[in-house]
């Protein structure tokens, strides 16, 4: 089995369905748009903010804050890339063509993750520069400490959250089920558990919470609760989750009947 051939095939698959274009475009537009709005708002309200908030203000993270919503579209992208194979029955045709489960899975995940990374990086850079332009005198330059890492990190975050979604969908073999778990997890469970003292320490280790640490340049010193890892440590935790999901997905693909 020629692996480049599998990659080409998966690339054709991904570029010839409308959902790819729509979900990734939505991720970019929502992230850039929401971030820009927030930056305009912050810039105009900065003087009215309490002193401690002004001190902890993170112009970098603010300029892609919209990613917290934009990631929903990236999750949908990841879920659909895998889930439609199952919902359409295409999986049987695909596996008959590429019977080596490892090649099939690696090809699909590599192509989709690379695409999510490309879109994520473009989105984070565009979002950063747009946001900084709108923040006016409160803006920060890309050359300042940790800023470039955070902007790159935002792109990486997009790619890894997509990979996590793909792995999980591979396990569940259903788009509906995967979305039904992932979206409430990211948008309800994480923020709720993260805001309650007793459960916050657990929430720190959720993939989306740990991963988003890489987008921040200013530690959240205010409430004194700092996660027990740095930006790359947090990203590592997220990547470990994604790896776990992919390994589990691979096990399911090997074990179960298609």
């Amino acid at each position, binding site marked *: 089995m020629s692996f480049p051939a599998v990659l*080409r095939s998966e690339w054709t698959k991904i570029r*010839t369905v409308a959902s790819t274009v729509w979900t990734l475009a939505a991720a970019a537009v929502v992230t850039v748009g929401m971030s820009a709005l927030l930056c305009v708002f912050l810039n105009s309200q900065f003087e009215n903010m309490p002193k401690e908030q002004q001190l902890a203000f993170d112009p970098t993270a603010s300029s892609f804050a919209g990613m917290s919503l934009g990631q929903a579209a990236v999750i949908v992208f990841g879920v659909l890339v895998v889930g439609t194979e199952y919902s*359409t029955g295409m999986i049987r*045709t695909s596996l008959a*063509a590429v019977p080596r489960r490892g090649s099939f899975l690696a090809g699909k995940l590599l192509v989709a993750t690379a695409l999510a990374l490309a879109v994520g990086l473009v989105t984070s850079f565009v979002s950063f520069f747009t946001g900084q332009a709108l923040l006016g005198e409160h803006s920060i330059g890309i050359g300042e400490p940790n800023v470039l890492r955070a902007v790159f990190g935002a792109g990486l975050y997009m790619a890894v959250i997509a990979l996590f979604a793909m792995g999980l969908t591979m396990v569940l073999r259903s788009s509906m089920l995967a979305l039904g778990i992932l979206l409430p997890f990211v948008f309800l469970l994480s923020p709720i558990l993260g805001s309650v003292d007793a459960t916050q320490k657990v929430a720190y280790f959720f993939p989306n919470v740990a991963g988003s640490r890489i987008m921040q340049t200013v530690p959240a010193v205010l409430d004194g609760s700092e996660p027990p890892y740095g930006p790359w440590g947090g990203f590592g935790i997220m990547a470990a989750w994604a790896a776990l999901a992919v390994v589990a997905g691979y096990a399911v693909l090997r074990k179960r009947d298609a």
Partner: protein
Amino acid sequence: MIELEALTKRFGAKTAVDNLSFQVKPGVVTGFLGPNGAGKSTTMRMMLDLDNPTSGTVRIDGKHYRDLSEPLKHIGALLDAKAMHGGRSAYNNLLCLAQSNRIPASRVGEVLDLVGLTAVAKKKSKGFSLGMGQRLGIAAALLGDPEILMFDEPVNGLDPEGILWIRNLMKGLAGEGRTVFVSSHLMSEMALTADHLIVIGQGKLLADMSMAEFIHQNSRSFVRLRSPQQEQLKDLLHAEGIAAAALPDSGALEVDGVASEQLGELAARHGIVLHELSPQRASLEEAFMRMTADSVEYQAHAPGAPAAGVGGQAGPADAPAWGAGAEATSKGGR
């Protein structure tokens, strides 16, 4: 060449495929016949390494499917016509398959032309009719110009013209020396296409023989007799040592293995009036039904009859068979 060795598949407590061993040889159309739920599709999925066998093996040209480096160039299969992404055009659905096996993109146009879908090549496949979907699936099977072709109920949803087309296609492919394996639950369809038959019921092999042999063994010919003097006729036949079966409602008699001429002359000699003297031949469909009768799973029940076993999970023991009481069938013909 496809070789199955003691292939078995269980779903929980249910044995869908039971210790199947047979070979599918090149140059002929091999029909794979069995009633609904007999295990045909499951067997085919295992041949393509989609379902994992509980035990046993399948070899394609001596290899496991997973070890074929570019499988579409060895074996092409139509399993389920809808096994494509509906949001993708017919052309693109085939293109991604072709690319994965390093089949030139020009071949996509060729097979679309072959199945008559050129005009809708750029259309999304979700708008396709059942017949068009079937043709797209056949195009996918032909993509790698494989030596082995496998079709699971290919005539499903095709109009008469389409059925004729696929029949000729399969014969043509076999004529070129390829291995053609096609499933159906219709004996009449197979009789027109297949040169060789493999019959299964409840996952077990019931027959593996040439079509000619199957016809020879299974098409019972008999003579139907009707007479206003039925009792006299019965006595006469009995006296001559000819076995006759009386049909309950029509009042006719059926005689096996004696020529109609002989029966007519016999009746004339004894002055018995005959209203009917007709040579009959049981259809292959009937022969197939007799063969699989005790292994039919999804059986229609007369209204009002106890519903036990309807819908499937009932074992063979409590499933009243149609042919119950019929004399021994040529089960296990090999």
